[in-house]
Every structure is written in C-alpha cells, then in structure tokens.
C-alpha cells in the first residue's frame, strides 16, 4: 500500500473532498441535478495532487448509487469535456495566432525600451538598481519616498506588467499553435511556428510558399539587397532561432537552414491541407540533421588528431 492509499482510507469523505486543496475529485459537490456543463468544466480545468479511489469515494459521498453508475456518468462527462475542449482548441485559427505573436513582439520591444529608460533614470536615484527587465522588476518592489522616486517606481511597475503580459501571450501561443498547426508547431516550436505564419500572412499562404522563401522569411532586407546585387544571398531568416540552425557550426548552417526550411514548408502544407500530425516528417528531418552534424564531428575528430582539440 502506498501513502496515497492510506490517505484515501483515513480521510473523512464528504467534507474533505469538497475543499479545493488538491484532494477533491471532479465530481465533488456535484449532485445529479447539476448542470452537466459544470461537470465537464471540472474535468477540463480541475486538478488534484494525487489520484484516489474516485469511484468508491463518489459512491460513499452518494454522488452516484453504484460504481457502474459512476462509470456511466464519467463516460458521459469525459466525452463531453473532451469534445468541447477539442472544438475550442480547433476554433483558434491562424489569424488569432498571428495577432498573438505580433502582440507578444510588441510587448517585448516595449518592455525592453521602457526598461532601458527606467535603468537610465533609476541609476541616478537608486544606487543598487540593475539594468534590464529584471532590474525594473526589482525596482517595482521599492518603496518610493518622494515624487520623483514615485515616478521611477511606477514606470518600473509598468515594465514589469508589460513583461508579464508578454509571458502570458507566449503561454497562449504555446497552447494555440499545436491546435492550429500541429506539425509546424512540433517541428519549429510554438513561437517560431507562429512567427512564420505571421510573416507569411496566414497558414494558407505559408503552405503555398516554396521552401526557399520559407528559408529567408524575416530576412527580407538582406534578400532585397541581394536581389539588387549589393549582397550575398541570405542563408536564413527567422528560422535562425531554431536549434537545428543555431546549434550547427557556421560552415554547415546554410545546409541546415535549407533542410529545415524544406521540412517546415512540408509541415505547413500538411497542417493546412490535412491537419493530421505526421511522425515520418519529423523523423526525416531529425535524420537529415544528424547527417549534417555528423560532418562537423568527423572533421572535429580529424582536427583533434592534428591540432589537439582546437575547434
């Protein structure tokens, strides 16, 4: 018997399990006449610190007459909850994601700019203040003593709130992107997936772009400079932030960016036209990246032998 089981046996049933202390089941406080939507909402949003023998507890608390009735009810509630959760996640469309990622970028830029101003100002008034958003967050907890201090602290509080807003938007993107574009989000990560969709103007237009365009999305300035004959062709746009590109040595980054962009373009097409997660797409990319990176390792091994470990 584990600790949790002992807890189940000794806890007084009804009173304890209605309290919101992580020991209550989804059915706590819901009797037969209760709105079924409320039960589905509990299943979706609720939580517990540990599982318990919920069927027995539900019978003991007289929520249901029998274990069979418990499971009948659980079936109705979980299918309803999951159906509505799926519908809600699917309703989140690509344009919502575009708004969210642009708002996140705005918040980030704004927070950084204001934090710089706060740091410049605070340096003259709070000797212990440090730069950046972390500095502004620390400053926001200070107790201002005069009018000027009050302005600085108030501004720092705003920075902290905008930075919170940015983090909340990122969390929303993390949740929404896998529903909008499951393959793209799995391959690129939620934020980069959202950024690519935003740069293309939507999932459909991203799906219609050739891989070469996906590779340089976000590097338009460099691309047009190249087309005007003033610069070499850009190797990568925003996909630079992807580990497969950034974590590859500079000599192979062009290859890595090209391989990644090719698979991202395919992922966007699968997401737009079918919407089903396709594992083989991801396996292919991982294999391709392993091959590209193996080149560096081979050469490093050779270098190790001749130069004693110089990178």
């Amino acid at each position, binding site marked *: 018997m584990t600790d949790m089981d002992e807890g189940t046996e000794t806890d007084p049933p009804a009173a304890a399990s209605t309290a919101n202390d992580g020991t209550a089941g989804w059915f706590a406080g819901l009797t037969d006449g209760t709105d079924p939507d409320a039960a589905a909402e509990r299943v979706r949003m609720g939580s517990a610190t540990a599982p*318990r*023998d919920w069927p027995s507890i539900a019978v003991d608390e007289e929520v249901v007459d029998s274990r069979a009735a418990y499971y009948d009810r659980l079936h109705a509630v979980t299918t309803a909850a999951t159906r509505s959760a799926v519908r809600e996640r699917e309703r989140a469309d690509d344009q919502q994601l575009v708004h969210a990622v642009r708002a996140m970028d705005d918040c980030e830029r704004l927070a950084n700019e204001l934090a710089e101003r706060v740091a410049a100002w605070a340096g003259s008034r709070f000797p212990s203040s440090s730069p950046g958003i972390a500095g502004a967050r620390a400053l926001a907890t200070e107790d201002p003593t005069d009018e000027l201090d009050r302005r600085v602290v108030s501004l720092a509080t705003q920075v902290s709130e905008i930075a919170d807003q940015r983090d909340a938007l990122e969390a929303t993107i993390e949740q929404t992107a896998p529903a909008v574009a499951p393959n793209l989000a799995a391959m690129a990560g939620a934020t980069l997936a959202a950024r690519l969709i935003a740069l293309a103007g939507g999932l459909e237009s991203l799906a219609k772009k050739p891989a070469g365009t996906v590779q340089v999305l976000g590097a338009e300035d460099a691309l047009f400079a190249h087309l005007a004959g003033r610069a070499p062709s850009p190797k990568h746009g925003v996909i630079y932030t992807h580990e497969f590109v950034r974590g590859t040595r500079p000599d192979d980054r062009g290859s890595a960016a090209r391989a990644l962009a090719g698979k991202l373009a395919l992922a966007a097409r699968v997401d737009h036209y079918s919407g089903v997660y396709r594992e083989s797409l991801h396996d292919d990319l991982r294999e391709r990246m392993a091959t590209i990176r193996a080149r560096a390792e081979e050469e490093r091994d050779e270098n190790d032998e001749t130069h004693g470990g110089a990178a």
Partner: protein
Amino acid sequence: MSDPTLPTGVERRPFDGAPRLATRGPPVYGEPTDGEWRAWDPTRSKLGGMLELGVETGLTGGETVLYLGAAAGTTVSHVADFAGPTYAVEFAPRPARELVAAAEPRERLFPLLKDARRPTTYAHVVESNVDVVIQDVATRGQATVANRNAAFLADDGRLVLAIKARSEDVTADPETVYADVLAELETTYEVLETTPLDRFHADHLGVVATPR
C-alpha cells in the same frame, strides 16, 4: 485459439485465411471485420505488436487501464474492447477528436485531452490503483513520463511501455537510448521484460515493468 499470453477477449481469428489478433467492438479505423470481431493490426499498434510477439504484458482482460498517448484511439479502442474501465490520455486536439468518436460507443473508455507529462491535471479524474499503465508517447523524456505516472499504478500493477528510440535522440544508437531510458525507469520500476519490436516497429523497445 487459447493463447496463454493473450488477455481474455483477444483472440487469433482468421481474416482472409490468415490468423490475426482481433477484439470485439465497433470498428474505428477501417480495419477488417468478421461479424463483431475486428482485426488488430500489429504494425499500427505497439501493444498489438507486443501481444503478437508473445510478450507477457500482465493484461488478462477486465482490468482497469490508464493509457498514455492514446492518439486517435487505434490501440486504446482495442484495449477498451477487452479491458475494464480505460482512461485514455491524449494531448493533441486533432487526433483527440477521433479518440472521442472511438470512445462514444465504448461505455468504459474515458477520453481526456491532457498532457501526460502533467499528471496532476488529470489526477482528479483518473482513479488510483489502476492495474495497468500503457504508455506510447512520442516525446523526449519517455521515462520521466512513466515515472510521474507511477502514482496511478497499483503496487502489483504493470507498466507496459513502448520506448521509441528516435523520439529521445535520433543521432544516438538505439541501444544507448534504451539503456538510458531503462536506467531512469529503474529509479521507480523494476523492469520485468524487454522485447525489441523491430519486426513491426523499427527502433522501438517493448518494456514490461512493475512498481518498486
């Protein structure tokens, strides 16, 4: 017909002349059917592959099951056909829609749109002391997921796990990946049996374990 390692409710039955694993229930994914029996394709289901290979999963029929990584319900629908109450956890919304469709005609299959890496988000629904946890998640950290979900498992219960080497690290040798995953599993479980599933699923290792 009677095979000692097959749970009650799973049988080898002839489909187009060749014997195939089958369970009784409404069809889910266009699989061949014979009356109320429907074929269980071992190349589409890791658990199906393990049963086909004679792995002793500890599944006997009628038990309570927590299934992690249910996807569109291909495998978990077969499990619900022969098991008792079956909780099916899946994180991605699109396959979960098909999972709900598979669950609708199965009174003891409970679909949950949850992240298997965060058991507290479904511990208020899934009961304690389940007999078997079946795990087929294609993410990095498969041992971590199994360890975190050990809280649901009865002391003498079974973890039936398919380790996908390429989800952990595609560049590493599968044998190295299996060793790492098994080492992490052994902090929480005692591993009873491991079987390569390569005949049906490349670079997958079937594992049966019990809580320490």
